[in-house]
């Protein structure tokens, strides 16, 4: 019910430090658009939560992402030209896909977005990054390709591609003093990405301090732990009980899981609403969030060299513990002996009234 006229009213929402923020999203790195698609799965927060103003304290957000845009072609590109000309301020630049090396060939392009009106030729993605990065409030890499190069940067690739920090420099800072923010994952875990964007919006609104990042430019609260540290199969490892075939519910390290040395929270967070993930649901961790992905983890289905050693070390301890726990487990699987239907009361209580 609306309050009556004149009754005092609390200001339930403080106006943010900036009223509007644009998100310019380039999917035209060497990408599969999988990060954009993944982000449509996010619910914490969802895209609509952010765009419809369902979260208190945020500026109004305008999203310009080619997968979701209403506009097409020139009408869509207008936002990018406006940002370049300083007419769209402030904006956060999101980059998706590896950054190709356009210098290694004499002509043509590896990746481009839009057409140059003067030459009729495509405008390279690198050109857009050069134009927009200096004007952005912050630059965010969605997924491992943009962050570190990822799958398209594997050995033998023809494009010489790399991550954005390799391209702009690891010490790069935005005009607001913010380093590149990497949210790796192949694809990016939906909520990890939206939560990072939310943090930056809070920061833009003056409601949060500088985003905490590690030396690989990842948000520390998302990538500070390993897959193994969050894995619900970790206890199998502790008991040296290893899966010997896929489909088993035991620890997968001997089948190629790199979880013990990979920074990622998927085993804690799951993929969506806690459902899915990787080793927790039977998929070996192939290190898809890591700067060394994919080459340092291939062939994916071989046992990681380190785990062959560590699993030997743990075997004596693990087997002993497993045997002892099995004994205790048998014990605690039995009800106390006083629970019976006979005429005697053996619980230890001494009745005085019956």
């Amino acid at each position, binding site marked *: 019910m609306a309050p009556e006229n004149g009754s005092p009213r609390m200001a339930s929402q403080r106006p943010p430090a900036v009223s509007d923020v644009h998100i310019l999203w380039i999917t035209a790195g060497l990408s599969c658009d999988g990060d954009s698609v993944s982000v449509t799965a996010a619910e914490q927060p969802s895209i*609509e939560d952010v765009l419809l103003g369902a979260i208190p304290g945020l500026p109004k957000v305008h999203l310009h992402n080619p997968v979701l845009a209403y506009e097409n072609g020139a009408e869509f590109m207008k936002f990018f030209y406006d940002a370049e000309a300083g007419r769209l301020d402030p904006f956060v630049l999101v980059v998706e896909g590896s950054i190709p090396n356009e210098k290694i060939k004499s002509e043509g392009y590896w990746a481009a977005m839009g*057409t140059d009106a003067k030459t009729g030729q495509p405008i390279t993605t690198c050109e857009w990054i050069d134009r927009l990065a200096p004007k952005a409030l912050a630059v965010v890499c969605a997924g491992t390709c943009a962050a570190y190069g990822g799958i398209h940067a594997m050995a033998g690739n023809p494009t010489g591609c790399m991550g954005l920090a390799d391209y702009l420099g690891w010490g790069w800072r935005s005009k607001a003093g913010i380093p590149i923010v990497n949210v790796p994952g192949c694809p990016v875990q939906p909520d990890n990405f939206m939560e990072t964007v939310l943090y930056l919006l809070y920061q833009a609104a003056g409601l949060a301090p500088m985003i905490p990042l590690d030396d690989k430019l990842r948000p520390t609260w998302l990538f500070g732990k390993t897959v193994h540290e969050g894995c619900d199969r970790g206890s199998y490892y502790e008991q040296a009980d290893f899966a010997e075939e896929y489909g088993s519910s035991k620890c997968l390290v001997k089948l190629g899981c790199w979880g013990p040395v990979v920074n990622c929270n998927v085993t804690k967070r799951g993929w969506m609403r806690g459902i899915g993930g990787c080793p927790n649901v039977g998929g070996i961790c192939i290190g898809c969030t890591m700067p060394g992905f994919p080459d340092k983890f291939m062939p994916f*289905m071989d046992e990681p060299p380190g785990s062959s050693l560590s699993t030997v070390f743990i075997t004596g301890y693990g087997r002993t513990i497993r045997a002892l726990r099995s004994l205790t487990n048998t014990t605690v699987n039995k009800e106390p002996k006083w629970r019976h239907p006979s005429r005697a009361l053996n619980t230890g209580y001494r009745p005085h009234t019956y």
Partner: protein
Amino acid sequence: MATIVQPGKGTAPERRNLVDMNWDPITRIVGSLGIFTKIDFENREVAECYSTSSIFRGYSIFMQGKDPRDAHFITSRICGICGDNHATCAMYAQNMAFGVVTPPLGEWILNLGEAAEYMFDHNIFQDNLVGVDFCEQMVKETNPEVLAKAESTASPHASAHGYRTIADIMRALNPFTGDFYRETLQVSRLTREMFCLMEGRHVHPSTIYPGGVGTVPTIQLFTDYLIRLMKYVEFMKKVVPLHDDLFDFFYDALPGYEKVGDRRILLGCWGSFNNPDVCDYKYGSMGNWGRAMYVTPGVIVDGELVTNDLIDINLGLRILLGSSYYQDWQDAETFVKHDPLGNPIDKRHPWNQTTLPKPQKRDFKGRYTWVMSPRWYDKRTGDYLALDTGGGPLARLWSTALSGLVDIGYIKATGKSVIINLPKTALLPEAQFEWKIPKWSNTIERDRARTYFQAYAAAAALHFTEQALKELHAGNTKTWSEFKVPEEAISCGFHEAVRGVLSHHVVIREGKIANYHPYPPTPWNASPRDIYGTPGPYEDSVQGSPIFEKNGRDKFKGIDIMRTVRSFDPCLPCGVHMYLGEGKVLETHHAAMFGTER
């Protein structure tokens, strides 16, 4: 031997004024696509169309020398919306190469995952991406008279979906503010949860391996899936009639709209959902187990089924150049001279392809895209057919209907239609839908088929859940089979990506990948003019297409072109870009030349 291209539908050979119009990028698709056109505004027709992709990544190059067991992990990354289709197809090819068969329960789990992918992907694409082209805001800006008519047109199936008028449906499709738009987005998450139950993660699955899946089969797994599936089944009872109302209205409101995006019926479907009772992953029996799939493979020419044999389909594959930024591989190594049955393999077959990228300036009179031109060689006529996939569902339903092989209770193919039976759900009684072979392979029918295929995938998933539970109840819990990687092998995988045909071809030497060529649907659909001058399906279906949009040159949105391109469900991690140019008048010239010469 050159395929003669039909002159654009309705194009008269008289001199005409053409305006250069292009859209780069085309949004609301996956990947980067540009569409460049020449438009005849006086005669309200698209005269020429070129499709261009602005991304090159080089999968077939960097996969050489890698472990063949890694193929499905790597190729999943080709596509960010149907990566799992790639992983699945790669795994089919691995199984054939390694001589291993997935245990039945593993096969059902994979089928359930892939069914969830269709349910998710068609859903989000249809109503969050395509739907915007039919939403109130868009129709108001392009055809206000159509919106006015929609306001006064009662929805024939209003009782099924709750939207009183067609304009109410259009309003519900407005991006973010429309309630059906938001509901669809929400349902797209429910279906992705179903997917994650079976394949671990979306879009790049974690639990697929050669030989089966790593998913742990429990009662809980299938319960969690089924509960969500039944919500989707209920949703379908509203969604199918809603789209029938919307699409039928466009035929009524804009007489002649059936000509938009219409092209010769040249459809390909490579089949989906293996039947573990029949599928042994051997090349020699591929025809049999292909026909046992729950979506029947087929090549359809002018409405006739040419073949539903995957071996014939395989032998007819050709990769042509012509307008792409590659050098020819005619002088490169021939990897496979004969298939395992002794049939000769063409130099232009994917098994023998060598990718030689040559970046260069874009030239619409020469080379203008990173997409090659896959074609299907019709040995009856000698034509290299530019098959399209109808966005996936149109070809799948058409092929399944014509073959008349699928009969699982929930689904029955009749020879001229596909009947889908959906059980009672929480609030709605049983429902039956019948998809009938349409008269046209056009924009509206591609979109309509998508909706019906959503229901088809849900119905198939009901069958797969029952089969999986039967295995589980019988104590058959194996989901993965052991294998050895051979030193030498050739193999192929055939599947249906969400938006159509998908094949993976691999050659293994010394235990490593010597050659690998994935052919997803979009190279078929988005291909440029080939060496014979035959345009690709986007180009072909936009060329000669009439224009119904009311806007003149100055405010032209190209909505009819956009609807056509999106009806194919473009997924070019390689895409289409449309850029609305200044509209300068080009030189006048003869229209009848299009496609026959470049």
